């Protein structure tokens, strides 16, 4: 008798434990914006531990203007599209480049920025873009990005002999340039300028050939309503003087 009661109590305890986690997501409908928290100046975590960046501030403004609630959720970049499709997040406003490949998976808003991809090296390095494409030079790149894919498909598979190393974030790839473990890193000009502004001794040596692309917000294919709201919000935001101020504040060049 005692034993039976004990095991029933035990089961209740196990279910309570499981329920504890469930209570966390039984709230009002709030759109969740998945961000790469390691992608300044588009999205990062500020000194006080709050999400910050051009995209975070822009989406906050749009949410206020269009009348919805938004929460910014740091998400690992190489799992960010699966997270969107699995409804872990509702949108991605985090400096995402529009590509044909991604268009098959998600819908994009109107573009609000450009990605120009360049190579960076240590400030005192003698490496040029031409030399960087030769045998045994080591490149660093962020995993799961358009640049990683482009370099793989259009350079390595086309016979270039340099080595490509993948990192969790663009800052980590640049950190390893400083450490000397890779000779150069492929990053966007926005990222490169942000890092140079922080006084880190790197320099841009030039474009390596990847075509320029546009940057936009991503939502699930079926979420046309949210897409319309974001498009309208972006249009209104870009018509205000605040848009220019935000771009200047975060050092994002148009």
């Amino acid at each position: 008798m005692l034993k039976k009661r004990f095991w029933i109590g035990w089961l209740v305890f196990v279910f309570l434990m499981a329920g504890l986690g469930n209570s966390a997501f039984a709230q009002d409908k709030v759109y969740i914006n998945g961000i790469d928290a390691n992608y300044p100046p588009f999205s990062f975590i500020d000194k006080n531990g709050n999400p910050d960046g051009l995209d975070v501030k822009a989406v906050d403004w749009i949410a206020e203007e269009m009348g919805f609630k938004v929460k910014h959720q740091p998400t690992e970049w190489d799992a960010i599209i699966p997270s969107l499709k699995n409804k872990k997040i509702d949108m991605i406003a985090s400096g995402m480049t529009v590509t044909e490949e991604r268009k098959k998976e998600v819908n994009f808003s109107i573009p609000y920025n450009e990605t120009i991809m360049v190579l960076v090296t240590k400030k005192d390095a003698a490496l040029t873009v031409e030399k960087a494409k030769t045998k045994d030079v080591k490149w660093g790149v962020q995993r799961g990005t358009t640049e990683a894919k482009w370099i793989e498909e259009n350079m390595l598979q086309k016979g270039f002999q340099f080595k490509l190393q993948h990192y969790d974030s663009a800052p980590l790839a640049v950190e390893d340039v400083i450490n000397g473990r890779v000779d150069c890193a492929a990053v966007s000009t926005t990222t490169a300028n942000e890092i140079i502004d922080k006084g880190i001794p790197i320099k841009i040596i030039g474009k390596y050939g990847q075509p320029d692309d546009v940057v936009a917000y991503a939502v699930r294919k079926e979420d046309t309503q949210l897409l319309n709201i974001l498009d309208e919000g972006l249009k209104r935001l870009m018509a205000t003087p605040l848009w220019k101020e935000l771009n200047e504040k975060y050092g994002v060049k148009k």
Partner: protein
Amino acid sequence: MIPQGLTAIKEGLPYLLEGALVNIAVVLGAMALGFALGLPLAVGHVYGNRKTRGLIGIYILFFRGIPLLVLLFLFYFGLFSLSGINASAFTVAIVVLGLISAAYQSQILRGAILSLPEGQMKAALSIGMSKKKAIFFVILPQALRLSIPGWSNEYSILLKDSAVAYALGVAELMARAHHVASRTYQHLYLYLTAGFIFLLLTYLGTKGLNVLYKKVGIPGYLR
């Protein structure tokens, strides 16, 4: 470099410590879930019939044989999504670590039960206790105490494993160190700080369990 590094640590510390609380919550949740499931698994593994033992064996093989990272992705993007439960990354981390820990904790407890002299069970039966009563009132009270050193090992493993929840985007200590490093470019200093906080938590936890062991230990069994 050093002054900027120290400034980054100072600025980032409250944010990092909040992350350490996330790790602690994950570890406590996983240990509790692991204990809740591990106890019946251990008893079943020692005293169950062949079928029970076989099933428990499969459970243990599964959760001890697959890497944590694989299980995390499997549960987060696979099982939970398919079943329509949109569990948060935090919940998934606790559930997965708890299920894995149940497999390990059952073995800790099983070892403790088997280490007890056979005479304990025989004596209990000879004074007329049923087998179930003997397990509850004679075997488990001793075995649980003997398991504490094994648990302190399990605690330190879980604590370090909780950092892997980073891959799901849980804002725990390691993820937060990366966040601050991305903003300040002081990678070395921030990962050093994260490492130190983990070390401190491991030390405090194992020390605490050691004190508990001495307090509730069976006189004569203590080393």
